[in-house]
């Protein structure tokens, strides 16, 4: 029972609004694991993740398409975490891979911003849960609008210049498998968002720049970045 989303999105399918709960999968893009190289098998990790590595974007992070995002004082750059977001349509608990997608109402773009950090041993709240660090696309497209969520092309532009092209085809856990594994221990509710994963290396943005994310079939999300006070 999150207390209402701060931002409104256009959503023409049930449940017609977001719940305000936003989850995401980390290290779920092959390139993100590859970037760690042999460090995966060394302390502090001592091996690749077994279960999905998840984060929560709390309500203070949610921002709308077009909202300026503050780059905190003392931080030079932020990592742009462009991800396909699943919007849950029906209560989702212990889904099988076969019927997982039936529980998805639609898709939207999620920008999981964070302050660059290493290692990934402890939760990243001071890096990832800052105000405005989760811009969401203005529109949830119905599930039928995306023929295959495991083949969505994602492009990131910085000040209009293409910086990265990636695809959900490279997810470690494809969408249905991710939903199945997550809902084994955590029920997702209608209007919850699950960001499926971010490619590495994530482009970095500074104050004064604009980021635009496009996902074919889903739309675009654009935000200016400004210098923050704290």
């Amino acid at each position, binding site marked *: 029972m999150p207390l209402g989303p701060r931002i409104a999105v256009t959503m023409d399918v049930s449940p017609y609004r977001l719940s305000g709960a936003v989850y995401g999968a980390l290290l779920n893009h092959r390139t993100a694991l590859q970037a760690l190289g042999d460090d995966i098998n060394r302390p502090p990790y001592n091996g690749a993740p077994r279960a999905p590595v998840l*984060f929560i974007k709390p309500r203070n992070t949610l921002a709308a398409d077009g909202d300026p995002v503050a780059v905190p004082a003392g931080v030079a750059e932020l990592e742009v975490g462009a991800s396909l977001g699943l919007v849950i349509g029906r209560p989702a608990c212990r889904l099988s891979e076969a019927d997982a997608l039936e529980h998805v109402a639609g898709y939207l773009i999620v920008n999981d911003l964070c302050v660059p950090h290493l290692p990934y041993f402890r939760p*990243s709240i001071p890096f990832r*849960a800052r105000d405005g660090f989760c811009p969401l696309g203005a529109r949830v497209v119905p599930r039928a609008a995306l023929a295959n969520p495991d083949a969505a092309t994602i492009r990131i532009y910085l000040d209009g210049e293409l910086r990265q092209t990636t695809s959900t085809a490279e997810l470690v856990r494809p969408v249905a498998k991710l939903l199945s594994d997550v809902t084994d221990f955590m029920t997702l509710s209608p209007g919850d968002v699950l960001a499926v994963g971010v490619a590495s290396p994530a482009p970095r943005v500074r104050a004064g720049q604009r980021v635009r994310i496009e996902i074919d079939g889903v739309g675009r999300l654009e935000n200016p970045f400004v210098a923050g006070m704290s």
Partner: protein
Amino acid sequence: MKLARVACTGAIHAAQPQQLPDGRAGVRLTDGRTLAEEEVVWLPPLEVGTVIALGLNYAKRAQELAFNTPLEPLVFLKGPGTLLGHRGVTRRPRGVEFMHYECELAVIIGRGARGVRRTDAMQHVAGYCIANDYAIRDYLENWYRPNLRVKSRDGATALGPWLVDATDIPDPGNLRLRTYVNGKLTQEGNTRDMISGIPVLIEYLSSFMTLDTGDIILTGTPEGAVNVDIGDEVVCEIEGLGRLQNTIVGDALFGR
């Protein structure tokens, strides 16, 4: 004032503590009805916003887990589906070796807070309740640890029974915490032993995120978290806040 949210006879009600004529513990609904504790369904005592939790916030607990005291508060988040009320049940999955309770003081944010100094922090506290923040250590991994599979499981964070007004708890920095498993005392501590006290936590958190009305901070647990098994009754008690009861159940109840 102590206020609970309970469900009975088709509606959700605010309820206050009320001893029954026969001496049993009960509640009085706002509409005047008096009921025994077990005649209502207890919900978390408020509609909760962001759930923030602390790891290793008691020095001896950190030693117990063989960790050095962290340099800054170790903070993680929990999703809304993990919350449940007093007298709830929490599932222990088959095959698990180490599942433990964590009795914690939960701080409820009243007035929103951003960039608050520790000297002003307590003005942003609406009240307190007890939290039992279960963990299943078998599922711990070293990626953004503690991971959600350990700490944000369905129905594995009990809250309640009451939301107690901040004004009723003059010194939240000196409250005794106790946990009983099947009536036997297994955990005992005091909030004065927190590494980062409530004002420091509010200053720290509000330095990088806006805290809003209804957000809660689970302030960590002292040493003495032991394994619990199916059928165990776990009672977490905090001075002035009451006692929060929970029962461990198995997979069968969930059709697993």
